[in-house]
């Protein structure tokens, strides 16, 4: 018998409520004192197709989903062939008798549990739509999980729809529970509520980032919906009235970034959440922010492309694009949080960096990080550490006391010019997209141009001081050092643990979350000390590896690249390590 260490996967079609019930079950597990890692997988379509939600459950904090499935809950026939190979020995497949007409062929060691889920739903809740509630009840019954956390979630989530709906779903869960209990004896994977555990949050990367941004004083969010960036807009819109935020769903992404620039110019901390296709439309205005020295934060939850690509899937392939986007050169920050905790910090830190250096700060997330949920302790987000640092922003009192002409683009050693917000009689100025002199007047002369390029570029000297080198996970000395960025942190961390469990000292990893400007000393030191370096990235060309080589000259010894639209799993990494010690593919990858 295995307790509190399993993955439950519920699968169905778009429209079956797979995602909401998966999320609800995660909540219930969190309330039961367990740790979860929840991950939806869905098609870019409103109806049909095959969606599923995986819930990995443990007593200890989880950083990643995993491939083995212990309990598969099949709302549609298609779910079974798609996932049966992932079901472990001793595992079970629960399916809806009404959907699966022909009994599926057997899988050795796997129990099949055909149940009249649709009928049970209809009988209890009055609608077949409640099948997902029934099947989660079955899961609770099979695993022996106390039903009360689930009941509390049902009461909360269905509350808005009236007592009848609540009661129906409670009955549905109960019916499922009882059915599950019948087979519990043959099912070795159990879940035990941990009553001593504190209540835990179940948080997505979207929520973590949004919370951090709000805590950091984000007061203006303009965006055009684009998966998987839009949930940040939705979160902010839902909290806008209460927390003093203005959100604007704009006519397009160009308007989104331009409105943010306008708002930031006036003094509001402004955020633009998007995905790569939307960011593509912001490239011209990104340069405007840089030239006018307007602080603005852009959040790009990456998805696979090129172009529309795979709207609801995962990639880490916009790094070099975001690093070099827009004509000519200017300093920018590039942050790529790897964990939900880092998402929170990036949320507020990006605003401080943007304002202190009066230049855009870009945050790279991705679909995986945006939608995956993890249980976190109530104190996991350090709100006390949040600072609102506005850099060289002149207060009205300082402006009152000014006894010289205010120069918006004054030349300073740091490259940062004290900033006045429009509205003060002593600081009437023009912000400029053309090259300009310190006062903001148009100026094309050679000396001025050189001074202004050097002013802007020299911000990098301060900026790089703000950046951290890669974080190492695993032993200081290891046979192989994996090099990754952003959301690959979680699966790779688990892979490192697994490798070292087999063979101590087998692997460690360097995780880059401060991508630009790169602090060369710690980066070079970390890379140089590695014995064998393998880049692990969700793209086809090893973009971080390219960046690192361009800046340090250090080349990776190999790369494990994944470009199938899905995130890494620990198991995938292990398999690649095992089949190919050098782990590089035959494609012209480094291009």
């Amino acid at each position: 018998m295995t307790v509190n260490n399993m993955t439950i996967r519920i699968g169905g079609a778009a429209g079956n409520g797979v995602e909401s019930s998966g999320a609800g079950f995660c909540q219930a597990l969190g309330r039961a004192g367990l740790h979860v890692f929840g991950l939806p997988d869905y098609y870019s379509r409103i109806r049909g197709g095959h969606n599923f939600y995986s819930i990995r459950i443990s007593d200890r904090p989880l950083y990643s989903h995993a491939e083995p499935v212990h309990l598969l809950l099949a709302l549609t026939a298609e779910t079974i062939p798609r996932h049966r190979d992932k079901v472990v020995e001793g595992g079970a497949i629960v399916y809806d008798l009404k959907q699966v007409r022909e009994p599926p062929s057997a899988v050795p060691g796997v129990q099949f549990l055909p149940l009249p889920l649709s009928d049970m739903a209809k009988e209890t809740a009055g609608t077949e739509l409640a099948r997902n509630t029934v099947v989660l009840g079955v899961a609770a019954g099979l695993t022996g999980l106390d039903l009360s956390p689930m009941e509390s979630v049902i009461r909360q989530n269905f509350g808005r729809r009236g007592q009848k709906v609540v009661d129906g779903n409670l009955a549905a869960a109960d019916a499922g529970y009882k059915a599950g209990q019948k087979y519990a004896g043959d099912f070795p994977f159990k879940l035990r509520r941990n009553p001593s555990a504190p209540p835990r949050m179940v948080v997505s990367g979207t929520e973590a980032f949004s919370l951090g941004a709000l805590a950091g004083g984000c007061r203006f969010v303009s965006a055009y919906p684009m998966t998987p960036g839009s949930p940040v807009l939705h979160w902010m819109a839902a909290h806008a009235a209460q927390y003093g935020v203005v959100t604007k769903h704009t006519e397009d992404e160009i308007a989104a970034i331009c409105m943010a620039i306008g708002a930031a110019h006036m003094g509001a901390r402004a955020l633009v959440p998007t995905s790569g296709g939307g960011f593509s439309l912001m490239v011209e205005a990104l340069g405007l922010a840089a030239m006018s020295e307007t602080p603005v934060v852009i959040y790009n939850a990456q998805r696979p492309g090129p172009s529309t690509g795979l709207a609801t899937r995962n990639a880490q392939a916009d790094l070099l694009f975001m690093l070099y986007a827009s004509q000519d050169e200017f300093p920018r920050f590039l942050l790529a949080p790897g964990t939900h905790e880092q998402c929170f910090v990036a949320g507020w830190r990006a605003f401080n960096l943007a304002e202190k250096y009066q230049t855009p700060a870009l945050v790279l997330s991705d679909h995986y990080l945006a939608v995956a949920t993890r249980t976190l302790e109530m104190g996991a987000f350090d709100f006390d550490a949040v600072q609102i640092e506005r850099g060289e922003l002149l207060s009205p009192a300082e402006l009152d006391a000014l006894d010289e002409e205010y120069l918006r683009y004054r030349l300073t050693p740091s490259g940062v010019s004290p900033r006045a917000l429009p509205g003060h009689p002593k600081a009437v100025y023009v912000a400029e997209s053309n090259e300009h002199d310190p006062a903001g007047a148009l100026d094309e002369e050679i000396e001025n141009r050189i001074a202004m390029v050097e002013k802007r570029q020299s911000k990098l000297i301060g900026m790089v001081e703000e950046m951290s080198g890669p974080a190492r996970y695993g032993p200081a000395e290891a046979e192989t050092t994996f090099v990754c960025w952003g959301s690959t942190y979680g699966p790779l961390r688990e892979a490192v643990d697994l490798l070292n469990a087999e063979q101590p000292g087998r692997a460690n990893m360097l995780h880059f979350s401060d991508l630009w400007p790169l602090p060369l000393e710690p980066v070079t030191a970390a890379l140089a000390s590695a014995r064998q370096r393998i880049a692990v990235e969700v793209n086809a060309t090893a973009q971080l590896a390219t960046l690192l080589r361009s800046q340090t000259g250090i080349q990776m010894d190999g790369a494990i690249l994944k470009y199938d639209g899905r995130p890494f799993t620990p198991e995938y990494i292990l398999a690649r390590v095992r089949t190919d010690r050098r782990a590089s593919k035959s494609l012209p990858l480094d291009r």
Partner: protein
Amino acid sequence: MVSRKDFDSPNEPTWCKGCGNYGILNAIKMALAEQGLAPHQVLMVTGIGCGSKIPQYMKVNGFHTIHGRALPVATGARLANHGMKIMCVHGDGDGYGMGLGHMMHAIRRNIGLVDIIQNNRVYGLTKGQYSPTSDVGMRTPTSPEGAIDRAVPPLGLAIAAGATFVARGYPGELPHLAWLIGQALQHDGYALVDVLQPCVTFNRASAYDFYNPRVYRLQETAHDVTNKTAAWEKAYEWGERIPIGIFYRVEGVPTYESQVPTLKAGPLVRQPLQKLRPEQVHALCTELI
């Protein structure tokens, strides 16, 4: 008391002698002074073009942005600080070409700003290509055989899109233009002031000698500015007689910013910017349990 001189800038305009932008510059200064708006109380957002350089040539808060995007920048500025007057000033290529979509959306939001278009019916800064309001048949470097795109009808589109203040001015009638801009500044919501701006260098066919005999003042006729259909039909009058003045005006349509819940507490940038209070943190985290 604010005076026109308060808006003077040391920077000499680089416009051609006789350019209609000089008149627009003067009219704006006159109107602002008249309305008692001091330079620091106004933000002038411009695009890119000859005319869009205007904030360089007067004392006023300016944001000289990118081509075609003045309106969204101005909208963001307005939402962040509706305590300041926001004006957009930009060319016809900028506003009616690249920026036409933004204009339609600004209008339906009734965002509170004055939008002045320096409509010289040509691209000035890039040296004479035809613009969205150029005449069919106009020969330019990008239309050597004569333009075949029919002109954008800006006033007709604005009225159709739901604009609450739609006017046309002419720098050859300076006090009238200043008056129009003043009226626009008083309007609560999006106010369009299309200006027939002579470009003496690249569009001589539409310069003073074209407009002078043709323009007449709508407000000296029986035109009813509250009659939308009449205004819309007027918007297409063009040829021997060209109307200037207020075509359409309706008050009482709520502005966008007046309906944003957060802005009920005052301009966003004047609301305190501080860390979340413990009870807020608690509430936000509890949501996630």
